[in-house]
C-alpha cells in the first residue's frame, strides 16, 4: 500500500513545516522559503507565516503538499517484542534459566540523567510497572549516572552480570553515539561481548540504532521494565546462557 500524508483528503500529501533560514526577513526571504520547500519535493507551498528572529535570521511556518509516497508494506520495523509481564518474566527465568540472573545498569559517560534508568530498575518502577529490583528472579544493580565505561565494565564483571543496561539521554552533537560505541569496543576488546546481553535505552534511542551500534536491543521513550526484562531473558535462553 502506497501511503503519503493526509490533510483532509486521502493522499493530498499535506505537511506542516517550520524552520529558520539564515537570511534577513523580507519578501525575498519568503520566496526563498517557498523555493526551498519546493526543493524538498513539495508543491502548492505556502509560507503562511514568517518573522525575523534577528537581523540575519527569519523563521517560517510553511504548509505544502507532496506527491512523494512510500510503500507501507515494505516498512520493516525491528520492534522488540513485548511479550512477557512481571510474572511471565520471573516464571520464564525459573523454568528456562533456573537461577537468578544478574542485571547491571547505568547512565554512562558524562550523562547525569538518572530518571530513565531508575524507571527501569528501581523498586518502585514507573507508571505502576515494577522495576527490575522488585523481580524475585533478578538481581538488579543500578550504578546510577555519570558512570565511565571502564568502571561499568569492571562492575559488571565483578557482579557476574548476565546483562548490562545503558541509558543515554543527552544526544547533543551525537555524544551518545560516541559513548555507546566506545563501550561496545571496550567490551569486545576484553572478550566479554558474547557473554552478556547488552541493551541501550533513552528517549532518542531506537532499536535500529542500537543494533547498528552492536547492541542486542534498544529501547526508546515509553519503555516499561518488563519490556527489557522479557527481551533479556528470551535472549539469554536463545543463546543458551544458563
Amino acid at each position, binding site marked *: 500500500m502506497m501511503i503519503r500524508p*493526509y*490533510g*483532509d*483528503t*486521502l493522499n493530498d500529501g*499535506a505537511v*506542516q513545516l517550520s524552520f529558520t533560514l539564515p537570511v534577513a526577513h523580507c519578501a525575498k526571504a519568503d520566496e526563498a522559503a517557498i523555493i526551498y520547500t519546493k526543493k524538498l519535493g513539495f508543491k502548492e507551498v*505556502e*509560507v*503562511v*507565516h514568517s*518573522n525575523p528572529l534577528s537581523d540575519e535570521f527569519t523563521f517560517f*511556518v510553511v*504548509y505544502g503538499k507532496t506527491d512523494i509516497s512510500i510503500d507501507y508494506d515494505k516498512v520493516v520495523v525491528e520492534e522488540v517484542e513485548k511479550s512477557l509481564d512481571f510474572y511471565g518474566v520471573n516464571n520464564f527465568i525459573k523454568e528456562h534459566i533456573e537461577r537468578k540472573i544478574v542485571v547491571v545498569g547505568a547512565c554512562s559517560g558524562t550523562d547525569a540523567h538518572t530518571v530513565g534508568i531508575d524507571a527501569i530498575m528501581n523498586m518502585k518502577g514507573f507508571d505502576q510497572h515494577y522495576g527490575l529490583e522488585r523481580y524475585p528472579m533478578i538481581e538488579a544493580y543500578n550504578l546510577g549516572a555519570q558512570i565511565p565505561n571502564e568502571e561499568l565494565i569492571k562492575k559488571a564483571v565483578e557482579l557476574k552480570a548476565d546483562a548490562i543496561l545503558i541509558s543515554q539521554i543527552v544526544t547533543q552533537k551525537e555524544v551518545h553515539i560516541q559513548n555507546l560505541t566506545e563501550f561496545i569496543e571496550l567490551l569486545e576488546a576484553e572478550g566479554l561481548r558474547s557473554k552478556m546481553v547488552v541493551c541501550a535505552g533513552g528517549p532518542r534511542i531506537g532499536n535500529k540504532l542500537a543494533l547498528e551500534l552492536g547492541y542486542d536491543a534498544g529501547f526508546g521513550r515509553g519503555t516499561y521494565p518488563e519490556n527489557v526484562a522479557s527481551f533479556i531473558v528470551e535472549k539469554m535462553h536463545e543463546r543458551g546462557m544458563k
Partner: protein
Amino acid sequence: MTKSKLNLDTNKIAKARELSKQISAPVQEYIEKNTTVAIERTTLRMMGADGVDSNGVPIPNKVVDQIGDNLCYGATKYYINALLKKGLSPEELNIEIGNGLDITKLDFVDFSFIEDKAQELVEIFASKVKANVAFREEKVHKYKEKENSPLLYLIVATGNIYEDVKQAQAAAKQGADIIAVIRTTGQSLLDFVPYGPTTEGFGGTYATQENFKIMRKALDETGDEIGKYIRLVNYCSGLCMPEIAVMGALERLDMMLNDSMYGILFRDINMYRTFVDQKFSRMINSFAGIVINSGEDNYLTTSDAVEKAYTVTASQFINERFAYESGLPAKLMGLGHAFEMNPDIKNGFLLEMAQAQMASEIFPEAPLKYMPPTKYMTGDIFKGLAMNTLFNFIAKSTNQGILLLGMLTEAIHTPFMQDRFLGVANAKYVLNNIADFSDDIEYKKDGIMQTRAKVVLDETIEFLEEINKTNLFNAIEGKMFAEVSRPKNGGKGLEGVAEKAEDYYNPFYTYLENELNIVKGN
C-alpha cells in the same frame, strides 16, 4: 450556577429583557400575518413531500411553484387534496408530481376529509419527531458521564459527505461531543434544499436530508462504540430556515445554527422573509428538542470586539426574545458569543473573561455557545495555539455550555484531521487542569472585570432603547447592526413572502403552536 461574580444590577438585566420584548412586538405582529415559500415547503415536507424531479427540482419547490399566488391559503390543503383525490401515499404522490402532475389542477374534496387526513399526517410527523426526542434523551442520559463540560464542538468541512464521515468519526473518537458539518459556501442563498448524498462543496458540505441521515448513522455507530451520544449540528440559516429545521427534526440532528437576524445582516436576505421564517424554524427546533445556536460571533468578524461588545449582548437579548416567542425554552438556547479581541490589547483577557462571564450570568440556563478566536488568528500557528489555550481557559472558568474548538490553522485552511485533534487535546488539557478554578476565585469589587461588564450592560441597554425607539426594521435599515444597512425591501427572498389569507390553513403550524404553548399576539 455559582453565585454572581460580576455583581451585575438585576434590574438592569430585567430592563434589557423588557426592551427586547417591546422590540420584538411589532415584528411578531408582522410574522403572524404572513407565510413564505419556505414555510409552505416545510409543511409539505412534514406531510411527506420529498424527492426531486428529473431536473433536480425538489418536489416541495415544484408544489409551491404550482400553487403560485394561492400560497396565501397555505400549501397543505393542495397536497392533502391530491393525496386523497389520487388515493396515493406521499411517496407515490411525490413521484407523480415529479413526473409532471400539477396538484392545483385537481378538484377539491370536502374540506372535512382534508382536515381528517391532516390530523393523521400531523400525528405521523409528531410521533416520528417525538421518537427522535425520546431516543436522544435516552442516549444522552445513558452516556452522560463521558461528556465534557463544556461540550466540545468540532467542525468538519471537506465538501464530501463520505470524507466528512471519516473526519467526524475520528473527531468523536478524539473526544468531541458535538460534530458540526459546515455548509458549502453560498447554500444559504439557495431557495431550495439540494437532494441526496453530495460529494462536492466549497468550504463545506451541502445540507441535504440524505447527508444528515448518513452522518447521523455514522455518529450513532461511533457513539455506541465509545459510549457517548455524539451530537450532530447543521445550519438552518438562509432562505430555507424552517425547511432545513424539519429535515433536522426528522433525522435527529441535535443542534442547528439558527439566528433570528443572521441571514439579514450577513447574507443579505430580506428582513421580512427572515423574520417570518425564523419563527417557524425555531418552533420546529423547539418541538424536536434541538438546541439552536445563534450567530453573535459574526458581529465581531467585522466590528471591533471591544468597542462593539454591546451589540453581541443586545443581539443575545433579541435572540432570546424571538426564541421565547417561538416556544423555545432557555435550555435550548445556545446563544452565541466569541473570543475575538485583538490579542495585543493589554488586559484583553480580562475583558474577554468579563464578557463571557456576563453572558453566563445573564443567561444562566442557556447552554452558551462560545466561539474561538478567528479574526486575529494568523499563519503563526504557535501564537494561535496560545490564543486557543486562553480561550479554552475562559470557556471553562465562565461555565460556557458549548465550546467551539479553536483551530491553530484557522487563518490557513479548513481543518486538517490533525488540527482538530490538537484542538481537542488542548481543550481537554485546559478543562481538566483548571476544572474548579472558577469556583476558587472571586472578582474584585469594582475591578476591571466588574467595571467592564457594567459598562457593556449599560451600553447594551442604551442600544436597545435606541432600537426600540426607531423599531427593529428601521434599525436594521439604519445600519445599527454589524455596520451594514439592509433596506426593508432589499435583499434576497422578499418575493417568497405572502400575506396569509383569512382562511389560511396550516394544521402543522397550529399543532406546534399548541404543543409549544405559544400565545399569539401578546
